[in-house]
């Protein structure tokens, strides 16, 4: 069974390096013989078994003995695991081609969330559970970027400290530039509780909004490396031509926290479970989008 694993692993490595091709050929020969109900005569299985056991002997003789004794069973286990992984990957690839997301129509992230904190209702910027139906929120009274009577409305729920929201930001900015005049963009704060200062950054952006500089501050805020110190927020305010004292006062007194909380409430109502979540016309997408994919969706919505 180890030969099947070897065929896949060394077959892939063999694409890049000639030194693995001979082993891949041996593995293929071995697999072919087993499929045709003949004995594998290359000795590859024995070699791999010995090399793995030999390596383990240096660290743990007991583990080495276990692996040596049950090598065939272990090989079976990993082979089944490999086949299952390959099947799952193929399913993901199919979904990606068909729906632009490896989780299929229900959306969600394709990657493991390395930023996961405590898993509360919306504790992370990656999904923690299967997506329920998202409800597009009513944002009539919310501030926005773009013309009032734009053809398409884009709503983003995002968090300044979420890696995925930050990853999505360049594509968002490019879309707004490309479709200037055609798109009305709403950014709704959905700070992740597990992330340090995530809500504070949202409050700071809203404080900038109090002085009419929300969108420039918002864009600059995404360019700062996290964690962001209060002093950096003040410096940014100064760079944006804000009244820094008023900004500091607003920020320290959390004067705009109620605006952020309203966004969070809208997010909860909408069923947001991870950031960024986009409502692009009638299309909903969870997770960062490449500019190419984003553009494709925008075009579809504009043409529909």
């Amino acid at each position, binding site marked *: 069974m180890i030969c099947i694993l070897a065929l896949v692993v060394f077959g892939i490595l063999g694409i890049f390096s000639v030194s693995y091709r001979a082993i891949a050929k041996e593995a293929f020969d071995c697999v072919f013989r087993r499929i045709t109900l003949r004995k594998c005569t290359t*000795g590859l299985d*024995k*070699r791999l*078994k*010995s*090399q793995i*056991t*030999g*390596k383990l*002997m*240096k660290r743990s*003789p007991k583990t*080495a*003995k276990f692996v*040596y*004794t049950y090598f065939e069973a272990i090989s079976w286990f990993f082979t089944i695991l490999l086949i299952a992984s390959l099947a799952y990957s193929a399913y993901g690839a199919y979904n990606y081609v068909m729906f632009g997301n490896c989780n299929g129509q229900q959306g969600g992230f394709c990657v493991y969330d390395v930023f996961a904190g405590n898993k509360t209702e919306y504790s992370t910027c990656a999904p923690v559970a299967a997506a329920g139906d998202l409800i597009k929120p009513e944002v009539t009274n919310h501030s926005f970027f773009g013309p009032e009577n734009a053809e398409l409305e884009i709503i983003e729920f995002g968090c300044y400290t979420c890696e995925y929201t930050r990853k999505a930001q360049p594509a968002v900015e490019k879309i707004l530039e490309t479709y200037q005049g055609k798109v009305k963009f709403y950014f709704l704060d959905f700070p992740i509780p597990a992330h340090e200062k995530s809500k504070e950054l949202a409050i700071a952006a809203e404080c900038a909004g109090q002085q009419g500089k929300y969108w420039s501050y918002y864009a600059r805020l995404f360019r700062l490396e996290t964690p962001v110190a209060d002093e950096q927020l003040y410096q940014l305010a100064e760079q944006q031509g804000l009244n820094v004292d008023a900004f500091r006062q607003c920020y320290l007194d959390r004067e705009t926290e109620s605006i952020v909380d309203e966004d969070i409430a809208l997010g909860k109502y909408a069923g947001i479970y991870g950031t960024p979540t986009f409502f692009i016309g009638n299309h909903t997408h969870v997770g960062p989008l490449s500019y190419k994919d984003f553009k494709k969706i925008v075009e579809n919505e504009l043409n529909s």
Partner: protein
Amino acid sequence: MNVEKLRNDFPVLQKDVVYFDNACMSLKPVQVISAMQSYYENYTACGGRSMHQFSKKVDEEVAKARQTIKKFINAKSDNEIVFTKNTTEAINLIAHSLDWKQGDVVLTSDKEHNSNLVPWQQLKKQGIMHQAIQSNKDNTFNIENLKKVLTKKVKLIAIQQTSNLDGANFPIEEIAKLAHDNGTLILVDAAQSVPHMAVDVKKLDVDFLAFSGHKMLGPTGTGVLYGKYHLLENLNPFVTGGETVVETTYESAEFEKPPHKFEAGLQNYAGIIGLNAAIKYLMPIREEIHEHEVQLNKIISEGLKDKVTIIGPEDPKQRGGIVSFYTKMDSHEIALMLDQQNILIRSGAHCVHSWFNAHNLQGSARASVYFYNTKEEAKVFVEKTQKILALK
């Protein structure tokens, strides 16, 4: 012999590695590497052809090497030393160059390396028969069995001096005497003996003797065929072409005298020069090598004898530097697991497939030591091998 001091001459030994595959390939000291490097850096040229100073220097160095080898094996003349690629080529030279007659017989032992078996089997097409002499139960040579098959039809006894399978030595002097009394020639495969003990071709009174450079500190691609001069003179040319002839016309060629008659084409000058350095290195210590190897063999044999079957005679003294063993665990598995622990040995049939097939065995694990190996290494080898054997 100061082993620790000698080990400093071997760059590879400065690594954390136990090298116990010396029956296949020896390591190289800096003296050999430097000699070859000097050829490439200072006087790379053709020998025996051009008239310039580089070429002259090459000729001198090759002549020196021939002289060194002559002394090393106590040959009568430099002209009895033919450079070859290795032992295999030297044996093939004899197989292809002797004046065979249909019905001639070649005798070998029953545990010869393929290089001293296949060339004789190939002569069957010319009506030459090959016969293997059965060994004793402990795999030592049975001289009585030789006497039984030594008929007047036996033209050649081609036999190893030391077995690469189990390290056992053959009574070459006695075999040579029997051969000559019968009017038979004797060719000795000395690939495993010359690197480990003093070999005196005059004392042994052998007609031909072949050995390789790479098993005795020398470079790969170097070997030697010794032959009594009058016998070499009567051999037919083997590989022909440049260097083997004095003169040619469109219709014919006048061949050189030995050894040049057999040294066709441009020679491995760097290799020959390296081989010279290797033999010079071995000369002062070779009398002590065998005893040192036996000491290591004793440690290994004592440490493993209860858990494995050692091929060959029980007494380590009779097995020199080789411990070849098998057990219920596959020999390749043992070797690969040892390799993971930086202990390098050989596994498999060691090019003696015929013996393993006759004994219905898959192969053996073979530890072969040399003078630069230490008792500590032997103990580590035993300890690690015991742990591996305990897996099954």
